[in-house]
């Protein structure tokens, strides 16, 4: 139960943070990505603010054996830079630049009630699930 309360609060604060910071505005995102034009660098401070807080907390956390409400930390362990990592990031960057939504802001913006946001999210979810399915079939064969 405690794990669910933390999950809920984390999601709540995350969505509010996205809204406050400007990350849910596609126009603002595209102006931030427009380094070759009239660049709006203000959104760089979203990442700076988030990293300052999380960097400090992470340093402190690594001295602990386990999280407070769970037995183990579920941390990524891979260190290798492989082709899927780079190729995936390229595709994601292009998609982000085409519309102005990354996954968190797209989900949050569903509350804005615009059909384009809904179509973006459906396309994103179907392709995520579809890719995972095809990849698992390929692994079996």
């Amino acid at each position: 139960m405690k794990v669910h309360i933390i999950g809920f609060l984390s999601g709540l604060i995350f969505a509010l943070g996205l809204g406050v910071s400007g990350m849910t505005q596609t126009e603002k995102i595209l102006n931030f990505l427009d380094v070759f034009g009239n660049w709006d660098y203000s959104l760089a401070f979203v990442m700076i603010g988030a990293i300052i807080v999380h960097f400090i907390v992470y340093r402190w956390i690594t001295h602990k054996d386990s999280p407070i409400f769970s037995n183990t930390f579920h941390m990524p362990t891979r260190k290798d830079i492989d082709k899927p990592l780079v190729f995936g990031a390229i595709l994601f960057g292009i998609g982000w630049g085409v519309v102005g939504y990354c996954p968190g802001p797209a989900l949050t913006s569903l509350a804005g009630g615009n059909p384009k946001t809904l179509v973006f999210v459906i396309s994103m979810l179907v392709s995520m699930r579809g890719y995972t399915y095809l990849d698992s079939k390929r692994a079996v064969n």
Partner: protein
Amino acid sequence: MSADLINALIGGMMIGVAASALLIFNGRIMGISGILNGALKFNKSDFGWRFSFLMGLFSGAIILKAFYPGVFDVPQAGWIEVVIGGVLVGVGTTIGSGCTSGHGVCGISRMSPRSLIATVTFMLFGFLTVGVFRHLF
């Protein structure tokens, strides 16, 4: 500093707090594409916290809609671009194991080389894409 910069910094710190709470208490990385990907597999063992996170996210979204509806805009991209963009973001974050939150915030805070490379790559291709769409066509 302009209001935009202060809002960005405060909002960013809230995102940092959200990621930190999930890590300290649940031992989980706050990567939205990863949470979604995991939730879509409907594994009994770890569906619960992902679902709770998403319910929290939607509750936050409803609060924003009620009190600050101006934070949402209508994407200027056409319908075809919206579908293509959604597919690229969905497939790209699945192949690349993360998005802005997982790689950009959590991964860089952990000084993960994979996340650093991913973040530099998707930022660069975001810049190039907007550059091409806004200044070449």
